């Protein structure tokens, strides 16, 4: 049955391509890249729990693929940011800025963490907008 369903999906897909309509071309447009990509607000702590945090920052548009990842490199030693958290976001071609927000789980209570942020396209290509090292302390 699974194979039959797969075939059906493939047939429908092929038919959609054969009988292409303007609707079939409606995929996310690419966002224009800012002349100089930089962080224009943050990074800052949106929320900090004993074991969880959200870090947010705003960039002018990095451009490239519609799907991007916000990247946070963090650790308890400011010279050794050896852990990485990343969260997907989707660029909006109509906006002149992009808000990145990253979830970090598995944190320890009452612990100070140091971090920098960056962002990448879906394929891992960096936007080269690294921040200075900042820190926060979990409650």
């Amino acid at each position, binding site marked *: *049955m*699974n*194979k*039959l*369903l*797969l*075939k*059906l*999906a*493939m*047939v*429908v897909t092929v*038919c*959609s391509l054969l*009988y292409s*309509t*303007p*609707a079939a071309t*409606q*995929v*996310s447009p690419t966002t224009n890249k800012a002349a100089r990509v930089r962080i224009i607000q943050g990074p800052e702590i*949106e*929320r900090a729990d004993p074991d*969880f945090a*959200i870090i947010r920052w705003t960039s002018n548009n990095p451009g490239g693929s*519609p*799907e991007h990842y*916000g990247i946070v490199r963090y650790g308890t030693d400011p010279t050794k940011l050896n852990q990485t958290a990343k*969260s*997907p*976001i*989707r*660029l*909006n071609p*109509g*906006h*002149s800025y992009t808000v*990145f*927000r*990253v*979830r970090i*789980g*598995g944190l320890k209570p009452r612990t100070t963490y140091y971090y920098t942020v960056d962002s990448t396209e879906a394929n891992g290509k960096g936007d080269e907008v690294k921040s200075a090292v900042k820190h926060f302390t979990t409650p």
Partner: protein
Amino acid sequence: MFGGSTTPIPLSPEDRTRANMVYNHWGQSIDSYEQSLQVSAFSSKFDAFLKGDYKLTADEMAGLKLFDGKGNCNSCHLDGRGTTLESGQTDTGAAAAVTPLFTCFGSANEGLPLNPRDAIYYQTTPDSFGFTGNPLGFGYRDLGLGTFLRSGPGAAPNPNSTWTQFAPTTDGQMQVSSARNVAMTPPQCPTTEAPGPYFQKEFFHNGYIKSLKQLVHFYNTRDKFKFNVTSGHCPAGTTEKVNCWPMPEVPNNIDMTSGNLGLTDKEEDQIVAFLQTLTDGYTRPYPNRDTFTGTCMTGGSAKTQGNEFLIPTPKLPPCASAVCGVQPVPRPAIP
């Protein structure tokens, strides 16, 4: 399934070809039907607005501006508008697409809680055909696209093995639905929203959300009112779906485009008003909506609609190895 055989019914080559052709025609018929005006009518208020034949109300226009702006909904529910709507601006631009589909055909994990009302969790014994829908019970997790890419339980074999490696970065992702007709109801029940009279719909992949107000509120406050509980266990003094959102079923790859939008209660309502302009049948009849012979529901508030049917999620066993143990396994591990 079927002992691993993909052709469990033995057929001669001629009959196999014949059977395949029947399925091909079946698929083509569905495709043609879905493309026809019977389904894809583009006859909503918003379509009329794009043609200059309908003037959005103040709330509907405010909702459109929020949909494109502060709400950021059109980062994936593409509405084809050619303008950037910032504070104080009105939408006077020409539409980039005259029949926008309100989806980017992408996939995303919006972090919906596990819905213990879904029947699949209880289909643990053979039915009358000897088929067991979900032998894993509450050990099942719906990893969405991730399960498809790694050919996990219930998924057809991934036709492109080079994509299997991406399973861990797509766990929990579901295909983004069109926002068109999200508010469509049977004719006798004019809305999806309490107090109604309303028709009870289910939103998102597991039906956890029961009204458009809740849907927008979820996007708006998912991370603001995040609690480390499962559905049915929100702390005393909080109300589930109002100021308590249970933990996501799949905590990996959660889309962070939304989750803390800072929308006011009124702005949420305005986005709902805009979503209600996307229902086909305004400029001409749309006869193919489902028939419904029951009675409409009434009373209550869209904010807590359906909460009377919440049940406590049982203590969840770990994600079953049949789901989370298939290579390449989820990273980080899913509890």
